[in-house]
């Protein structure tokens, strides 16, 4: 269908985009009909597109409509500016009476599919998602060749739209849950998209102030297929090279999809170490403070004296001591994230080895604490997912506070609070701790 509109159509486009550096408007004559081609050079390879259009045929076309047919053009229906921003190419009659979309030769803006960047995959497929949605779907289909894969498309945003895809496996996922999620996203279709956290708020994760993330992020299509088969729902957000898996369940912290590639015994060992790691990360500094300041008497006498000797001359109470060192470590983490890759190792050297040694020699902290903080920091990263690492980092401080006030009893209190927080966390009435009767999936 050809849409004839007044010349203001062209005026409108020029007004909105004419100032842009990449705005391109070019007169062309194809099969004897003069027309104008409009596109954004940053998104469209204009030269190649014009060449292709010119090669459409030699003989003269009788009218505009025949030309469109020959070019395989598509009628314009929506806002022309939006179409241009999406990387489409517009052809206009010089008088501005007719307009149509033609196939663009797109500029290559996406990186090629490669390995994952921030996630190490030991066994299983090494490919990782990229920023392009279509490629990502392709990667998932490559892992999961199933007709049951259901995709729902939701555009979020007021002026600029961001595409979110909701993926689920119809034979595994709870259909009511899928509809709930889609509905919750649809309700906010006109809200500007700001962050993934905002999306998780839309999905009504409770409690609102909870530090626990309501989703797992993964860069691996292999893992996405694993989660889909388990009945989870996967969100793909345009521009994010990660898939978002909802809802999160507690075992996701400790059990990875790739564990199934090991023998059961070794997999069990690895999982046990991850759980132990999380516990050490949370408890070690708190236990130090509780035992040093509040209840040294629960330790063996040998230990009491060896610790007391290592702390001779340390001027601060153990809480201050632990906080000093923890803050240094936290700053080291933050600095390492910002630093270019070439300076990172030097920073680790200065921060970890030199500072650690010097701080002990200056009698600011005891050498035992260095060991404990180091152990706790290493253990922190044994859990799966950076989001959870942050929660553990936070909870370490809460435990430290409790321990310094109430001693070993405080550790128990803090642990109790942590367990109740984890148990009360839900996303769309879906609890984080999945206590439910075992049902066979797939």
């Amino acid at each position, binding site marked *: 269908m050809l849409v004839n509109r007044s010349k203001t159509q062209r005026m409108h486009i020029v007004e909105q985009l004419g100032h842009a550096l990449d705005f391109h408007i070019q007169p062309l004559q194809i099969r004897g009909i003069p027309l104008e081609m409009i596109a954004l050079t940053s998104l469209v390879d204009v030269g190649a597109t014009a060449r292709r259009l010119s090669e459409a045929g030699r003989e003269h076309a009788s009218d505009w409509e025949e030309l469109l047919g020959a070019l395989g053009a598509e009628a314009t229906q929506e806002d022309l500016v939006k179409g241009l921003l999406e990387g489409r190419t517009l052809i206009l009659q010089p008088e501005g009476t007719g307009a149509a979309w033609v196939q663009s030769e797109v500029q290559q803006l996406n990186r090629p599919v490669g390995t994952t960047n921030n996630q190490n995959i030991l066994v299983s497929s090494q490919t990782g998602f990229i920023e392009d949605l279509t490629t990502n779907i392709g990667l998932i289909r490559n892992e999961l060749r199933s007709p049951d894969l259901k995709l729902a498309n939701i555009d979020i945003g007021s002026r600029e739209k961001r595409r979110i895809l909701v993926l689920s496996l119809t034979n595994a996922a709870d259909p009511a849950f899928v509809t709930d999620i889609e509905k919750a996203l649809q309700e906010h279709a006109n809200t500007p998209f700001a962050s993934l956290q905002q999306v998780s708020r839309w999905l009504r994760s409770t409690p609102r102030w909870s530090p626990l993330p309501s989703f797992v992020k993964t860069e691996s299509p292999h893992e996405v297929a694993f989660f889909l088969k388990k009945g989870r729902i996967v969100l793909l957000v345009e521009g994010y090279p990660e898939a978002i898996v909802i809802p999160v369940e507690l075992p996701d912290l400790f059990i990875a999809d790739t564990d199934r590639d090991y023998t059961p015994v070794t997999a069990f060992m690895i999982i046990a170490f991850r759980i132990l790691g999380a516990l050490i990360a949370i408890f070690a500094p708190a236990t130090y403070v509780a*035992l040093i300041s509040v209840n040294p*008497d629960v330790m063996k*006498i040998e230990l009491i004296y060896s610790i*007391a*000797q290592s*702390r001779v001359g340390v001027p601060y109470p153990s809480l201050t001591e632990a906080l000093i060192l923890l803050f240094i470590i936290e700053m080291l983490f933050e600095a390492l994230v910002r630093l270019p890759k070439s300076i990172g190792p030097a920073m680790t050297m200065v921060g970890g080895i030199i500072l650690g040694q010097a701080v002990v020699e200056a009698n600011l902290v005891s050498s035992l604490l260095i060991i404990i903080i180091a152990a706790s920091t290493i253990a922190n990263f044994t859990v799966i997912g950076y989001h959870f690492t942050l929660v553990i980092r936070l909870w370490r401080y809460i435990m430290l506070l409790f321990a310094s006030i109430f001693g070993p009893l405080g550790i128990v209190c803090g642990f109790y609070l942590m367990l109740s927080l984890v148990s009360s966390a839900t996303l769309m009435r879906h609890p984080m701790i999945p206590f439910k009767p075992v049902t066979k999936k797939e």
Partner: protein
Amino acid sequence: MRKRVRTGICLLAAWLGCALMTTGCWDYHDINHRTVPVIMGVSKGQEKRYKVSLQIPIPAERKLNVKVVSREASTISEGIDNIRTDVENYIDLLSIQLIVVSQELAREGLQDALTNAIRATAFPPKTLLAVTDSDMEELLSNTKKAITSDITTFYKFANKRAGWTPKTAKANLMESFSSTQSYTQDILLPIIKPGRETVLEFDGSAILKKGKMIGRLSDNETLVVNVITNRFYGADVEVLESASLTIRSAHMHWSSRVTENGPELVGKLNLQTSLSESRIEKPKSEHISDLEKLFLKELEQVTNKLIQTGADPLGLGNHFRSKIPFEKLAQWRSDYYPELKVRYLVDVKINNLGSLVQAE
């Protein structure tokens, strides 16, 4: 809405404030500002009733400074308090490993002191108790050197996994206290004195009856007591005329009954032994019968000696708790115990004859 949030926050702050107030966390002492005495000595003072001595290791960089501080006072807690005033660090008694009581005090009776120690909860109930007949200051100073190099010296004496042998008695504060309250059980305390080459010398054990020391047992008698009370752990070499046998384990099984002539006990002892030295070529069966005879003699001798003193550190009365009415149990020490007849059966097995061939 906002008002409700604000009151909520105020309440939360108040609640947290109250919670913080109750903790007393500002009174905590860091580990390097505490001193944890390992041994406490209590003896008779010259002017006042008690003389309390504490051996206090004060942590310094890479070593310990061990001090022995003594103060006289009319009560034990006053004595500790006097020491606390004079020592620079906070004294934490909750890790005390050993309390040594002088023999004079033990003879006067420890019941009150034990009751107070348990009541005050200043000492851990697992603290070991010992009696000494030598000078307390000398004992504590003598052990100073050993403590400086290894803080756990005393602890090791009483530890099954370290230096404890079945020839020494072992009793902790809680056991001693409960024996003073029990109708049917008394306790033995080890007697220690400063050694010349070794840190300590064990000099038998003290028999406590209702918290009062009434006699002593020698090393070997203590071993027998440990065998009878099933506290035999580790190994002990028993020298016979022709051989020496190492006892690997000893177990006693009791059967009790009350007859018209008074209470009767039969103890069946199972000994697992191995042959360590043999002087004359003698068959195994003779070693067995020798050892059985030896043990029978010793068991009967010690039991009779203890029955004569009237104290029951073997806990023989415990076997009659279900057979004598509870109201009469209070008279166990006076009415039943002197009448008690104990018969022993000893069963010896030699499990290991070594690599050499031995005649049957």
